[in-house]
């Protein structure tokens, strides 16, 4: 009897100890790094795995390589090493909210995410805590109304606006208003373009004849293109990802719709994968907008980026997302540099970084990797420029210089 009681007591004690120690251990994990003065902490929430890993992985590699370059070769920012806390959000919204809390807890000064979806999940927490951050690929809803979230790249709406402007000025020859059909992926990639088109088409003088939508898993878009053909549009704008875009373009060629209409693509569509999937002859002459330079272009940051990419992640060489995120690393460093210069290292808080870092950005050229980065009051987009590209002979060639996309007066609630 005694024995049983004793064992019970020990068991209970053990259980209690375990219950108490689990959270303590957990708390320990959350704040494992000491605050030191010679380092500045930033958080990266990266979709390194999960359904968006295809983009998240090279982007994650690029920004970590870039910070490594800044720390090793440039001696950090203003003499302070950048310490990165990065977490894999697996493209899962719930995990992204957990991670943003972790980053705030860990004392980061700012954070970034790759995708608009993950920023959407993090934004509310960040805004509640006045914690600044930016998303590389963004959606209009994130920066409207402007709060503590910024956008590195022009979003899918800006793409549409930039393409529409270019089309009206340089391609459209006919009388009256050109008739445009939209073919959109059924997520925020498509919705961004639609939001811009709905707001701007009338003012620009474009007649939106129809909006079609497709799923990422589509295997035939003959039916939707047949409906589009019946309306006899002058231009077809696709905001999607490479695989569905390749299906649409192949079907458009089969139907005889293209060549004939002008085809414009959002920046998520116009990549080398599209050319590979659809075949160079199908995509010949297709226009698209893209916000960064190409590999091998003659810009200041290209050499170091190529060197680091070849050395640490040779498999990512040639991947456009690597460029985007290398630029992201440069922007993070620039924000921190401005903040340290303006308020001093001892006064750095996330709020100070936002006031004196983000908002002090003025015509930072990002090593020429994409359009210049400037903060203008009321517009949380950092870079606003895209270039128009055209595919010829299987190569995606730029045909314009940087075009500024106008700020679009979105209203979201």
């Amino acid at each position, binding site marked *: 009897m005694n*024995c*049983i009681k004793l*064992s*019970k007591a020990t*068991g*209970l004690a053990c*259980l*209690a100890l375990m*219950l*108490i120690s689990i*959270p*303590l251990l*957990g*708390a320990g*994990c*959350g*704040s494992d790094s000491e605050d030191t003065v010679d380092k500045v902490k930033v958080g990266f929430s990266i979709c*390194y*795995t*999960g359904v968006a*890993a295809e983009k998240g*992985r090279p982007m994650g590699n690029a920004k970590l390589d870039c910070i490594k370059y800044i720390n090793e070769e440039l001696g950090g920012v203003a003499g302070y090493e950048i310490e990165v806390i990065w*977490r*894999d959000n*697996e493209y899962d*919204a*719930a*995990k992204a*909210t*957990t991670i943003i*809390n*972790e980053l*705030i*807890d*860990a004392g980061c000064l700012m954070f970034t995410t790759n995708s608009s*979806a993950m920023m*959407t*999940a993090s*934004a*509310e*927490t960040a805004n*509640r805590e006045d914690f600044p951050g930016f998303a590389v690929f963004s*959606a*209009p*809803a994130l920066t409207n109304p402007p709060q503590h979230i910024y956008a590195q790249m022009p979003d899918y709406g800006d793409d549409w606006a930039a393409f529409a402007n270019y089309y009206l000025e340089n391609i459209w020859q006919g009388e009256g208003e050109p008739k445009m059909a939209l073919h959109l992926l*059924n*997520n*925020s990639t*498509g*919705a961004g373009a639609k*939001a811009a088109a709905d707001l701007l088409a009338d003012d620009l003088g474009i007649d939106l004849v129809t909006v079609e939508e497709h799923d990422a898993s589509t295997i035939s878009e003959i039916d939707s293109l047949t409906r589009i053909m019946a309306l006899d549009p002058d231009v077809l704008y696709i905001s999607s990802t490479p695989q569905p875009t390749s299906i649409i373009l192949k079907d458009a060629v089969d139907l005889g719709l293209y060549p004939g209409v002008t085809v414009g693509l959002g920046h998520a569509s116009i990549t080398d994968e599209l050319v590979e999937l659809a075949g160079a002859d199908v995509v010949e002459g297709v226009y698209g907008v893209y916000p960064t330079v190409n590999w091998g272009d003659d810009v200041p940051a290209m050499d170091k980026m190529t060197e680091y990419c070849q050395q640490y992640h040779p*498999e990512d060489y040639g991947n456009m997302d690597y460029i985007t995120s290398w630029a992201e690393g440069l922007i993070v460093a620039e924000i921190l540099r401005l903040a340290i210069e303006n308020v001093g290292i001892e006064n750095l808080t996330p709020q100070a970084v936002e006031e004196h870092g983000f908002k002090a950005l003025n015509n930072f050229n990002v090593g020429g990797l994409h359009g210049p980065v400037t903060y203008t009051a009321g517009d949380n987009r950092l870079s606003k420029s895209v270039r128009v590209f055209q595919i010829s002979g299987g190569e995606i060639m730029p045909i314009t210089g940087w075009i500024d996309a106008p700020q679009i007066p979105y209203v*979201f*609630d």
Partner: protein
Amino acid sequence: MDLPAGVRNFSYAKDMAIFRTKTHWAMLLLLFVVLFTLPLYLGNHWLNVANFVGITIIAVTGLNILTGYCGQLSIGHAGFIAVGAYTSAVLTNRFELPFLVGLICAGLLAGFVGMLFGIPSVRVKGFYLAISTIAAQIIIIWVINHWTNITGGFNGIAVPEPVIAGITFDTQGEFFYLIVAITILVIFFAKNLARTRPGRAFIAIRDNDLAAEVMGINLFRYKLLAFFIGCFLAGIAGSLMAHLMGFLSAENFHITDSILYIGMLIIGGMGTTVGPIFGVIFIKLLDKGISFLSPTLEGAFNLPAGFTTGIGPMVFGLVIILFLIIEPRGLAHRWQLFKASYRLWPFSY
């Protein structure tokens, strides 16, 4: 019953009590003390993990009533959670109704939608029902994505912070108390439900629906009731999730989540009250461990680039398969065995 020797009952009420001995009460008290002091020593990060664990426990408890007790397999649970989440978001954002109204309506609407898609269960079961719940999820998500003027469509919808009686819940710690309180209520409800007439009817239906019908159980009514309760809890979980995240988009409710809920249920143990708790905590900790370890491992051993990407789903799949083969009654059963052997220790036979 798993009680120590020498515990006697002098009334029916006592026999039916959940907590029988002083040890039980002491453990319960200890658990409550630990739970309610958690925010004191956990940071926002781990509180957020705990909050999602709580929400998932509510959702899986709902699934447990539907699948574990009543035997109606649903692979569309994330869809019903989405209904709840959006109901609450729309009511509190667009119509500016109080949080509690949103919460209850979220549960009710999710319950009714669940009932609607549960109607085929009267004629079909097993695979047919599984497919029709998958279809339900896809249709629900499609409607949410396109009913733009109500749900915000692909752009998503912002969800205000919950306010109850003047108190605003806007930190992880405050959310934690809200979620823990509701989770405890839900677990208590589920435990008792299993011991009522409907609960026993559910079990009879699961074990043999024809026999149950012959015994006089109205299949139509009880199956729909199971759908209603299961999806009601899904709706409650969805509402809490919406307010915790502060922003909703339909991408948050993926069919993979529905499958993972089933996995949690299997691992925890179907048809037991503690099963969902064990299953959710197990999977969430496993998940946390994998996402913490795998990038390190990949770097340390120079593993192929897909290691981090693939290892999570592979482990989850493997765990589900292994549990079904080796321990189909789940962790709850292991827990029972452990308790039994611990009670008799060191004189087990």
